[in-house]
């Protein structure tokens, strides 16, 4: 069940960047894991360890239970299975056109041209940007660039996809489009790991949450349980997601039954509130 794991990961930048200290994390196959913490907590540093870009000073990373090595061949095999998308899309687009850029990874896998073409088409399809294939990368909008960057990783068909602040800077439409694409990826079997400081995003998208602060995982577990833990979220400098608070309040007040699902979207939450108030109102007028 465990796909990727870290044990006692410790790392300090010489120039004083955010460090990791004795960090344990478990990524389970087929799940969506949010690494949730404030800015500067070391989330990006952790992601860079999960695909072997950084090498821990102590501790280790395990894939399918076996520690991975750092020889060139090991790294190649590792990165074939674990894809990484950084926060700033401009750092990741290198070619003149979308199609060309997305083919960078598959070509490096040594695939034949036909297979590469198929993978590029599939990746653009799942990210919902098939129509952009021939566009020049520098003419893309901010949100389009983000999706192309993710398509570049998706085209390599990794088992796990690591994403750093996937929705940061996106407006509502961009965010909704991206989330839909990530859901499609997940439905197709991919394991997703994303780092974010946005508790609402974590609540909406993640199955599991690892609360992260000062280079450590404070608590890891199912999203609802971890995010409802006020002591833990406060220790990470965060507050619980608004919709979760609303949902739990509803449960406590008996507006929702103990086994009713909590609202995960704004629409669902509004509908819940409206229903409860209409009932109350109709009750009082009767």
């Amino acid at each position, binding site marked *: 069940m465990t796909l990727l794991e870290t044990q006692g990961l410790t790392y300090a930048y010489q120039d004083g960047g955010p460090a990791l200290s004795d960090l344990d994390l478990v990524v389970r196959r087929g799940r969506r894991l949010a690494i949730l913490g404030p800015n500067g907590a070391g989330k990006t540093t952790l992601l860079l360890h999960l695909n072997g870009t950084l090498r821990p000073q102590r501790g280790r990373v395990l894939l399918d239970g076996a520690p991975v090595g750092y020889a060139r061949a090991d790294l190649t095999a590792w990165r074939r299975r674990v894809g990484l998308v950084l926060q700033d899309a401009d750092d990741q687009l*290198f*070619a*003149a056109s979308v199609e060309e850029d997305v083919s960078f990874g598959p070509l490096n896998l040594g695939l034949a041209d036909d297979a590469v073409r198929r993978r590029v088409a599939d990746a653009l399809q799942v990210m919902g940007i098939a129509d952009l294939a021939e566009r*020049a*990368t*520098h*003419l893309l909008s901010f949100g389009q660039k983000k999706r192309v960057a993710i398509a570049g990783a998706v085209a390599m068909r990794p088992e796990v996809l690591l994403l750093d602040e996937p929705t940061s800077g996106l407006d509502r439409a961009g965010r909704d489009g991206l989330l839909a694409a990530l859901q499609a990826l997940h439905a197709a079997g991919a394991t997703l790991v994303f780092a974010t400081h946005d508790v609402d995003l974590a609540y909406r998208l993640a199955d599991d949450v690892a609360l992260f602060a000062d280079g450590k995982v404070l608590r890891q577990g199912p999203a609802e349980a971890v995010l409802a833990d006020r002591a833990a979220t406060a220790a990470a400098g965060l507050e619980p997601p608004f919709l979760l608070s609303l949902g739990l309040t509803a449960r406590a007040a008996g507006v929702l039954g103990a086994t009713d699902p909590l609202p995960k979207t704004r629409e669902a939450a509004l509908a819940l509130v409206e229903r409860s108030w209409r009932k109350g109102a109709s009750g009082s007028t009767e």
Partner: protein
Amino acid sequence: MEGYLPVGHAAGWFAVSAPFVIAGAVRMRRILRDEPQTKMMLAAAGAFTFVMSALKIPSVTGSCSHPTGTGLGAILFGPAVMAVLGTIVLVFQALLLAHGGLTTLGANVFSMAIVGPWVSWSVWRLARRLGLGASVAVFCAAMLGDLSTYLTTSVQLAIAYPDASSGVLGAVAKFGGIFAVTQIPLAIAEGLLTVVVINALEASPGLLAEMRGE
């Protein structure tokens, strides 16, 4: 390398380099008087050169080194400007990375910020005038710029430390031999690299448009 040259040589190379750097600075100030905003562009070009020279370039032999960047810099920004920018870059390399040094700054400026860029620029101009293809011209310019830089360093060392029996020439052969083993493959790599860069810049009109600020 800090302190590697005897004091007379260190001072001598300062004297040799100074006119080139001063001429470049005078020229720069003239540009800046009319267009002060060019300051940002020049600084960006300098910082870009620094970062490029801190990147690792793979060599044919499997070893790694750093590109000198003099060829690309000379083609893009011109050799006069590179004398000043190169000097700033070398000072920061000494202060931020402890590469090179301050006492040997004059010698390093001469080889890396003057000889290299001028050779690259001249080769590039000549090759274009001879009607050679752009890629060939860029390759030759960057490769020979890199090689001339290291050859100059060899000569500088040989003059400072002539061979006891075979003199300066013998020492040139000695230092040159040491550098040649590692440097020729790296010069070829730098030449190829520069071709990739220039081709990518030309292949993507967007990159050039962004450079021109359109």
